[in-house]
């Protein structure tokens, strides 16, 4: 399954890609931003940073059993700092279609375009 985010900034595109990640598993409208989790990763290559960011979220989703609905990301010199808001999985309510195993390097692309940034990759489910 592919995820793709567009944003005016690199950080904005990463936030949108993270929303797409949640949408791979559940209907986004059902997830409430009740709990906050802070995430940090560092990687000079913007494409590898996208994979690290999504994998950090996947790790939190598995270990905390949460789904995320809102993100605030800042990226400076390959250092990503983020807050992600979400809630614990409620199987009855959210009915997650799949668990996400990991973000891959397949179709991995982060690029600046005339109108902003695009960040994408395929995630394994």
């Amino acid at each position: 399954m592919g995820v793709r985010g567009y944003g005016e900034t690199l950080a904005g595109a990463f936030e949108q890609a993270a929303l797409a990640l949640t949408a791979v598993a559940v209907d986004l409208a059902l997830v409430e931003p009740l709990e906050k989790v802070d995430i940090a990763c560092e990687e000079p290559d913007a494409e590898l940073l996208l994979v690290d960011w999504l994998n950090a979220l996947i790790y939190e989703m598995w270990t905390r059993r949460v789904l995320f609905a809102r993100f605030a990301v800042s990226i400076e010199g390959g250092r990503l700092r983020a807050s992600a808001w979400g809630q614990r999985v409620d199987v009855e309510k959210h009915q997650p279609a799949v668990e996400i195993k990991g973000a891959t390097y397949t179709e991995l692309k982060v690029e600046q375009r005339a109108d902003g940034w695009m960040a994408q990759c395929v995630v394994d489910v």
Partner: protein
Amino acid sequence: MDVKSLKRRSEFEWVLEPRGPMRVPGVLFASEALIREMDDKVIEQVANVAALPGIQKASYAMPDAHWGYGFPIGGVAAFDPAEGGVISAGGVGFDISCGVRTLRTGLTRAEVEPFKRELVDGLYRDIPVGMGRGGKLHLDRKEMDAMLTGGAEWAVHRGYGYPSDLGRIEEHGNMQGADADEVSSHAKERQKNEMGTLGSGNHYLEMQEVVAVYDPAIAEIYGIAEGDVVVSIHCGSRGLGHQIGTEFLKSMAASAAQHGIKLPDRQLACAPIDSPVGQSYLGAMRAAMNCAMANRQIITHLVREVFAGLLPRAALDLLYDVSHNTCKVEEHILDGRPRRLFVHRKGATRAFGPGHPDIPEDLREAGQPVLIGGTMGTASYVLAGTRESMQHAFGSAVHGAGRAMSRKQALKHWRGRQVVDDLAEKGVLIRSPSQRGVAEEAPGAYKDVSVVVDAAHRAGLARKVARLEPIVCVKG
């Protein structure tokens, strides 16, 4: 895929001659119709694998091959460490040692039919499935490490199943050479509450009827006959395997240049087998293989408990347990010489032929059981490894139907409720926490497993033994 790029060697064997950086040819086993249906990316990925250092003979694709991550799913490749051969985290995949286990109930369809609703409800209640439901077992650090080195044998020692189960599992349920210290704390953290859980996606737990037997002699040795009921479990190493795959993909991609490896696709991340990264991955991957076998062993125990409460005369002994995402050290004869090779099977099942010492003694004359998972609405198959299969692709065969359309496309075609109702009308009961998940896994979203299995049979990769059709299915 355009067949013009391939040379046809026989009805079911197609060759991609070496070009550019390819060190060996690509060989695809499939009917012309299956080749035409395959994504062009399969050929690109077969060619990329053929360019990796130390690859032997050919880069293979099975009849169910489809576009994967780095390696095609349905890809087989063997590497020799003495020739700079590599091990690839992408070549094993995220769900390390994902596989299928089949249990014989010793009961007939007529005997289970009155209990099927209670059975599927019991299985759905007691075997955690999907996201957000952990298992009842919680492993501390010491038990985690014991599980990672002991595999299914560890599970049996903890009371999950019987010692007699182990003889019917590849590697006797315990993959040697596992190193729990090479498994990161993140991977262990992801797994500590997940033992005995089925997962989601294409993973399932099914009760199935043997509806046809194609090879009565082998079926008799395997202990199955028409009308028998079996239980099949399809799942893998859960979060632990996924995390190991994620971490080594990154470290292998980063170190490739230092090893003088030019990666045509970053997802093909690999390292020389004899390098420190390669050895670390081997230790961690083998630990994940143990995790997957332990997981299927615990689920087997849970299945037995459910049956014990409803149909206590069910035997539930193992037919066999196969893994289809692995890299194993095996001896194969190349140019008349025995060679020790690292065989990657990504979405491919080991299919050793009759007489191979790794097959349990009581099954050895029949060849290794090859368990092929289908969809919840069609069928699964039992095949047997053949002598021929050892010559074709290092003793390998297909692993499943393979998707014909994406999850997104499937959602446009089906509604989960409708799929469940349609199957109920045909007598197949489905239980799943997610209607959307059921729609994404609709039988029509997959290739016809019978066509794939027929191609494997006719190509000589494995021999058709029996067809299994679902009676009930618990789906992630």
